[in-house]
């Protein structure tokens, strides 16, 4: 328990160590820790921002998708409309074509009928003449009765 010069020795050493600590130890460690704190905070903020961006992107995607669906529905509608239109047109065309064909066929049939009629008429007159000749014998002159037969056939 002797108080002596050691007291001052310790005080001087104390001052030296405190000054050393204050100049060379404390500031770099505290600065590095503050930097790291900032870095971590920045990282977390960036992660938050990325999350927000992701959410925004998701929303945009959903909107885009919605829009695309609407567009697609419109396109399908238009296509359907167009298809039925085309169908109608085709039906129309087919009907008119059919009419036209029918018309042609009718004309042809008519012509055919006329021709057949002509032919039949000719053949009938010949047959009649033949029959009549056979019935009346050779007296019946073809030339003199031709007009009569002709008239007959005409009215048949």
């Amino acid at each position, binding site marked *: *328990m*002797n*108080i*002596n*010069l*050691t*007291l*001052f*020795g*310790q*005080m001087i*050493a*104390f*001052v*030296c*160590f*405190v000054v*050393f*600590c*204050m100049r*060379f*130890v*404390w500031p*770099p*460690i*505290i600065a*590095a*820790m503050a*930097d*790291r704190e900032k*870095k971590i905070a920045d990282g977390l903020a960036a992660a938050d921002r990325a999350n927000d961006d992701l959410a925004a992107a998701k929303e945009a995607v959903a909107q885009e998708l919605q829009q695309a669906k609407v567009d697609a529905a419109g396109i399908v509608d238009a296509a359907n409309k167009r298809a039925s239109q085309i169908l109608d047109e085709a039906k129309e065309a087919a009907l008119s074509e059919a009419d036209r064909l029918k018309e042609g066929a009718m004309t042809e049939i008519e012509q055919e009928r006329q021709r057949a009629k002509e032919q039949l008429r000719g053949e009938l007159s010949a047959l009649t003449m033949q029959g009549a000749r056979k019935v009346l014998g050779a007296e019946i002159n073809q030339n003199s009765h031709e007009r009569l037969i002709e008239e007959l056939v005409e009215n048949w």
Partner: protein
Amino acid sequence: MAGDNQTVSEYIVHHLTNLTYGRLPEGFERYDGSSVPDGGSWVMAHGAEEISAMGFYAIHIDSMLWSVGLGIFFCWFFYRMACLVSEDSPSGPINFVEMVVEFIDNTVKDTFHGKNRLIAPLALTIFVWVFLMNLMDLVPVDLIPYALGLAGVEYQKIVPSTDPNITMGMAVGVFILMLFYSIKVKGFGFVKELTMNPFNHPLFIPVNLFMEVVGLLAKPFSLGLRLFGNMYAGEMIFILIAALFSAGIMWVLPAALLQLGWAIFHILVITLQAFIFMVLTVVYLSMAHEDH
């Protein structure tokens, strides 16, 4: 035990004696019967009488070397870590250093609200340095003194904080800082604080002054003597336990258990005392900064 023909009390006294270098007054009769020449002489003390004869003009070589050595170790270790530390993820001892620094930083921030770049490094130095000095208490009491005794060094006290010079040296250093910041921050308010508290009347100035000065002086004394008292008592118990080993073979086991138990308990004490010294320093300096 150093020396086989010691009594227990000699053993204890030997362990509590510092290695002292000092000036003996002229005419003092030394241990070997020689007389100190005129003008005194600077010598290594031999025995308690010579140390007390030296009075103030002496220095405890062992306390100073261990204290400064531990202080240099602290500075070297923390400086090396401060060079390695970066904002990337820390590892190994850097983690430890950062943990200590952060702990000190938080403690200082909790207690000290002013702006002063000195306080936190001061607190760090005090905490780690006092802790290291206290830590020497856990080294078996005979190990180093005995080894150095074989090498011819007569006395060795390896726990600097069991030397009141060491603890009071730091406490006085803190006290000077307290006075400095009181005057710097408060100026004349510091004088007013000393004279006008607690009785705010000119008539009571002498009473106030007496009470406040006593209160002010009590701070460094309580700071230094608390640490000294705790460490001295702890060291004393270690020495007593060590002395118990010499009491006979049946005392070896109880002494070993006591040694172990006290050492484990002392881990708490040395940390706590370092922390208390640090916190009180910050509190006192915080009070010095606060203008009422």
